[in-house]
């Protein structure tokens, strides 16, 4: 049985015109990717490899120079309710309460106020924030803000969840807790997930498959299936098999990371 992928990126290319030099700078150089229904795929790569740009193309916020994004076999060119983004900085509206932020997407879709409120409350409970409905973002910790961020994306009931390094700004302990929480919520919500991260262990712990991006311009270097059974307690990160996969991915990106570091040194010198 060859099922149709839920999300497919076909040869996505993107180049910017550099304002200073007038030359084109390639950010994405032919990205091909297929994600099946319910699959959790993580993209790792050196910083500046175009991971976040790729996510914006999939969401439809940035138009690709060439290539197509297909959801259920249909091309998408703009944001739609079938995809929702969990942003890197939580991007919560500071003048709205937790509940007000979570229902934001529903308001944009024109869902009736009463239904929007009820759905938002359900999601606030799912991400474990019951009792904080009427708090403002500045009254929440970084981890709690990301829970709101996640609830805001889930409440519109998207088919595909696009997550852009959502835990990058959290401290190490909170991050591990949030990773575990995300797997719990993912199991409950049954979504297809595309997760961007620069942390190899985070990608491995969360994903069914880890896609490795090469350095700029970004393209898929390799795709590695994570054959670690679920549910995954946080302890799997200390298993030998986990470390072996970590080493393998590190080898794939090591060279790009070192090249990038060298370039940065040159740029500063």
């Amino acid at each position, binding site marked *: 049985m060859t099922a149709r992928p839920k999300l497919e990126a076909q040869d996505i290319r993107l180049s910017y015109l550099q304002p200073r030099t007038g030359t084109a700078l390639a950010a994405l150089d032919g990205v091909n990717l297929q994600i099946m229904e319910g699959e959790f795929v993580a993209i790792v790569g050196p910083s500046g490899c175009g991971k976040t740009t790729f996510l914006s193309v999939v969401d439809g916020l940035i138009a690709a120079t060439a290539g197509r994004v297909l959801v259920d076999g249909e091309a998408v060119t703009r*944001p739609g309710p079938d995809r929702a983004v969990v*942003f890197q900085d939580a*991007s919560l*509206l500071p003048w709205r309460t937790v509940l007000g932020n979570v229902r934001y*997407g529903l308001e944009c879709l024109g869902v009736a106020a009463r239904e929007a409120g009820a759905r938002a409350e359900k999601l606030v409970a799912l991400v474990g924030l019951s009792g904080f409905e009427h708090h403002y973002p*500045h009254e929440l910790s970084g981890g709690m803000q990301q829970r709101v961020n996640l609830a805001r994306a889930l409440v519109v009931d998207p088919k595909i969840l696009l997550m852009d390094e959502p835990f990058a700004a959290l401290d190490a302990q909170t991050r591990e807790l949030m990773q575990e929480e995300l797997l719990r919520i993912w199991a409950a919500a049954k979504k297809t997930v595309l997760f961007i991260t620069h942390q190899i262990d985070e990608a491995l712990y969360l994903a069914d498959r880890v896609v490795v991006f090469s350095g700029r311009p970004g393209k898929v270097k390799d795709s590695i299936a994570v054959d670690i059974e679920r549910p995954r307690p946080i302890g799997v990160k200390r298993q030998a098999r986990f470390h072996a996969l970590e080493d393998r991915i590190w080898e794939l990106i090591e060279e790009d990371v070192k090249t990038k570091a060298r370039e940065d040194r040159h740029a500063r010198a």
Partner: protein
Amino acid sequence: MKLERYLIGGGTLLVFLLAWELCADSGAINPLLISSPSRIAEAGAAAMSDPDFWTDVRVSANEFILGYVAAIIVGVPLGLLLGTSRRLSYIFAPFVDTLNAVPRVALLPLLIIWFGIGIWSKVAVVFLGAVIPILIAALSGVNTNEARFVAMAKSFSASRTKIFLSIILPGTVPYIFTGLKYAAGRALLGVVVGELYASTAGVGRMIADAGNMFQTDTLFFGVLIFTASGLVVVAVLDRLERRFERWRPGVGAPT
């Protein structure tokens, strides 16, 4: 901490008033020049029992309120509009910049030719003084909207109207309040200068008359009225701002 602040601040003020009183009473400085707190209080009491004084207050208050409210009604929407439409801002930018550079009180003689020496020339100068800072504040509030919030809204397929109402407008509120407070000072200045220059009534007129007759006590009392009005307006705006911005850390959030 707070008590310390009030003790030191209030104490200093008290010492200053006492020294002022002593200088005048002892004759060290001619009271005709500097008056004194007790003389000002007496002049104030006398003025307040005079119906003419209340007419002056009413005239000045009307000039301030009419001009200031008109400036808000025009300045806020126009600033928001110019902030949202690039082309409109190109059209209006030269006028806004020029008007901002002109000291608006310099237009008073012209305004008096247009509107006479009654309250409307003063309303006009108050309006001109206040409208520019309010407009610029609203405009810069729109221009500094956070790109990440707009990207978030677009990701949820928000309409342009929705983005304006839910992202841009709330983001301008702090800027608008800053503009309103600054504009209140400009508006008050318009009332004073306008009435000093040419008028038939008003607290500024009262100050000018008192000055012409060397009544320093009454003159100081008039200045005191303007000072108090300025403080009251800013206090009212502060309260309003706190109501609007409960969400901001530190602006009256009940933490």
